[in-house]
């Protein structure tokens, strides 16, 4: 328990970014090694056979199975659209009519007069894998995909939703503690990745969706809003497959959270540059955090990794409280008593003393703070 702190999120200004881009099943790779790609370019594609949908037409019409063909408006092989009437039956001299509507878009695969069923096959599902970020193809994985590389800035959020997308970075707020409200969004943000401040709420998300914003990077979000946005209560933090219309990367946490200045400055410094965002998060063994990639050089050069020094907490270290009652507040360590202390909850743990900018001080469990890199 003594040394528990959240693994730091990566926020680097220049690094080598390498990503494997794979198809879910075997297909065709459409690029060659060495090619320079843009984020939305397709690198590999394949097709999944369409699903089939059985329709119990005879019983829906209330007719005998063997008579089904008489009532059909479509033949085998015909294309049908969703909700299109494909069979109809009249009874009582046309007084009562019953219809069978196509449940999906597709083609009529078969009409069975034995079972009274129709089979409708949906169109094959094309599967394409994009380059995801501007970069160079460095390796081909035959029939499966490629390896993409670029050099640029890379940062991780703590939580995100929505899949991969890319666009130009745009700043919608002036300061990291400003909320991203609907009035700060305008037409110029369409198709871009918008950087917000401390929080975004549902009206602003809706506005962003309307405008066609590709992604939003913001300090915090309320869980109630997230539930509304997703349409369900998120249980396990495994995300990335949602189709929301935009991707969302939260850099700090839930609630109103001022975006770390390092993150804000890094993003702000690249306004106008093309970036790629992936909201996919997985907080588990093999942790995956949402990310923002800002390629600065598509031609690969040698990069010396900046080694973030792993340093422990010392007196004077700037920290952020990450649990109620001081949640989200920034401060400075003033003492690190070695002995265990009893908290209000009566738990006995290792603590530290912290002074907040307004001069007040507090005693916090060491597990409830995270260090802020300056």
């Amino acid at each position, binding site marked *: *328990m003594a*040394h*528990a*702190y*959240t693994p730091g999120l990566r926020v680097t200004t220049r690094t080598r970014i390498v990503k494997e881009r794979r198809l*879910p*099943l075997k297909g065709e790779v459409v690029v060659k090694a060495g090619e320079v790609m843009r984020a939305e370019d397709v690198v590999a594609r394949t097709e999944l056979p369409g699903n089939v949908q059985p329709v119990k037409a005879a019983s829906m019409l209330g007719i005998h199975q063997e008579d089904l063909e008489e009532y059909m408006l479509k033949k085998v092989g015909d294309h049908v659209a969703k909700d299109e009437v494909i069979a109809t039956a009249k009874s009582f001299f046309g007084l009562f009519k019953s219809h069978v509507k196509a449940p999906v878009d597709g083609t009529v695969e078969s009409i069975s007069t034995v079972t009274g069923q129709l089979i409708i096959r949906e169109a094959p599902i094309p599967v394409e894998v994009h380059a995801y970020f501007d970069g160079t193809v460095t390796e081909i994985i035959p029939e499966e995909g490629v390896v993409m590389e670029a050099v640029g800035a890379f940062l991780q959020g*703590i*939580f995100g939703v929505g899949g991969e997308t890319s666009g130009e970075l745009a700043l919608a707020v002036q300061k990291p503690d400003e909320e991203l409200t609907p009035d700060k969004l305008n037409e110029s943000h369409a198709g871009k990745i918008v950087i917000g401040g401390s929080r975004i709420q549902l009206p602003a998300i809706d506005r962003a969706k309307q405008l066609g914003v590709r992604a939003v990077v913001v300090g915090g979000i*309320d*869980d*109630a809003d*997230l*539930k509304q946005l997703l349409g*369900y*209560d*998120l*249980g*396990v*933090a495994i995300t990335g497959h949602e189709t929301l219309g935009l991707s969302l990367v939260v850099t700090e*946490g*839930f*609630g109103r959270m001022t975006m770390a200045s390092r993150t804000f400055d890094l993003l702000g410094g690249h306004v106008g540059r093309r970036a790629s965002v992936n909201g996919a998060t997985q*907080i*588990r*063994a*093999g942790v995956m955090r949402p990310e923002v990639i800002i390629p600065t050089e598509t031609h690969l050069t040698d990069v010396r990794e900046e080694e973030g020094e792993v340093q422990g907490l010392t007196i004077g270290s700037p920290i952020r409280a*990450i*649990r*109620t*009652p001081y*949640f989200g507040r920034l401060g400075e360590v003033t003492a690190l008593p070695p002995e265990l202390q009893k*908290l*209000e*909850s*009566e*738990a*006995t*743990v290792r603590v530290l003393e912290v002074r907040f900018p307004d001069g007040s001080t507090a005693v*916090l*469990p060491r*597990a*409830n703070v*995270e260090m802020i890199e300056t």
Partner: protein
Amino acid sequence: MSEGKELRSILATDCGSTTTKAILIEKQGDSYRLVVRGEAPTTVEAPFEDVTKGVLNAIMEVEELAGRKLLDGDKIIVPQNGTEGVDAYLSTSSAGGGLQMMVTGVVKSMTGESAERAALGAGAIVMDIVASNDRRLPHEKIRRIRDLRPDMILLSGGIDGGTKTHVVELAEIIAAADPRPRLGSSYDLPVIYAGNQDAIPEIEERLGGKTSLEVTENIRPVMERENLMPARHKIHDLFMEHVMAQAPGYKKLMSWTGYQTNSGWTSAPIMPTPAAVGNIIQTIAKQEGIQVVGVDIGGATTDVFSVFQDVFNRTVSANLGMSYSVSNVLAEAGLPNVMRWVPFDMDESELRNRIKNKMIRPTTIPQSLEELIIEQAISREALRLAFEQHKALAVGLKGVQQERTISDTFEQSSSGETLIDLLGLDLLVGSGGVLSHAPRRIQSVLMMLDAFLPEGVTQLAVDSIFMMPQLGVLAEVNERAATDVFVADCLIRLGTAVAPIGKGKEGQTALKATIQLPSGAQHVEVPFGSMVRLPLAVGETANATFEPQGKLDLGSGPGKSLQTELVGGVGGIFLDCRGRRPFEIPTDPASRIRKLTEWSDALEVYPKEHATASA
């Protein structure tokens, strides 16, 4: 289980996903006792990537605390030589996400379920059950297997002399999927075949070359009987040989584990942590002839173990836990279910944010009392849901012929009823941070009572310092040493709960009790809807006579009295007359808060001044 030579001292470690815990056990006089324990962060992942570093750190802490030399450089000194070294070194591991398996069976609710039980009992997480009748098309099954990338596959199906085609078909699907293991692609995926023995040649033909296939006895030789042990042992063996061997540092660790016998040093396997916990619970149930439920609530998962009618069952609820999965507890249980345990009002949106923040920052701990109460409320729901899931899997076998008499005409029960019988439960053991580290032990008592709703007379205990895994692996080597320490040092006896079944009228006397406490006989009358706590220290017992009133039942029949011996603990005796089947909490907030506060005060669960002030 060879007793072997008398072991003088034992060192055991458990490599968890965050911490590695070491304990030192010594023989003192006739019995074995825990001497010290130490812990250090686990070092499986970057930057260290060698599990033994964490193990050595933990052992060094033990060395310091025990004042005894155990290490010679980077080596454990074995066997014991004077005061240096130990006679046995054993280890368990759940690092790297534990053992993740996929199992197959012909019929999902029959051999599929048997396979699931075999894998769970061996300490695995079952990612999916592929069965002939799971309504997925072959290509869907193939894709699923590819996506999952399990550590190991247990292929079963058919009774001996039963179907061959189905199980061969399953083998073909696995062969077509050609799965690669999750850790390291340099070795073939281990597949255990434990199905119809007649189909072995066909299975070998299809999977022999592509996977590292191991054949063992059928887990369901006839419909009426399961034979899970051979498959479980095979799973352990392969876990060692293939899965663990791939994890960084484990090869070295495996070379260390072993114990001294008459014929010299014998190496011992590293067990998956949950399998070891299951092992110690089974051992205890067998030795004392009791029915036991054990629960281990972790950050991401909650394991429930039970032994009823000599049948051992284990389930793992992969998405119920107190940190990574905390938000899922809320989603599955629903906010009202969590809030029913909270004795104050709270803004929903605020609570949601707090829970989600705990999810994304799983290592934080509750500082304020309010936070603690919320966390313990969530834990009740996590435990309750995990127990529900356990009840659903700990069932009798399906597909077995039933015998009927004419009196069954209108009550034809289905097969596969749950084995869990709360009235027959003797001992409930809790483990995991929220239970073991609750600031007041009585909080663990109430959490367990609320979540499991034990009926009749039930002893409660918690695992003080997560020692069950180490004792489980020790039980494989020396059963007596394991049970000695388990009884004396591992368990913290919380006391005994007495809860009559049924519903009474609020405020009317529900239970009359005469208890021969060491301080003298005490007569108590407990009104329905309330709880009473009586002190009875650890190691003490008391004879008691209970007279449940009205239709209430303590197991001897409605309104019938019961004589029994109660076992003491740090909490004492809890007379819980809040009702069972149904157990009800008022739904309107004012009476709920009043009731919860009343119970909390009766048991002194939370400091009084805060419990109300923080509202």
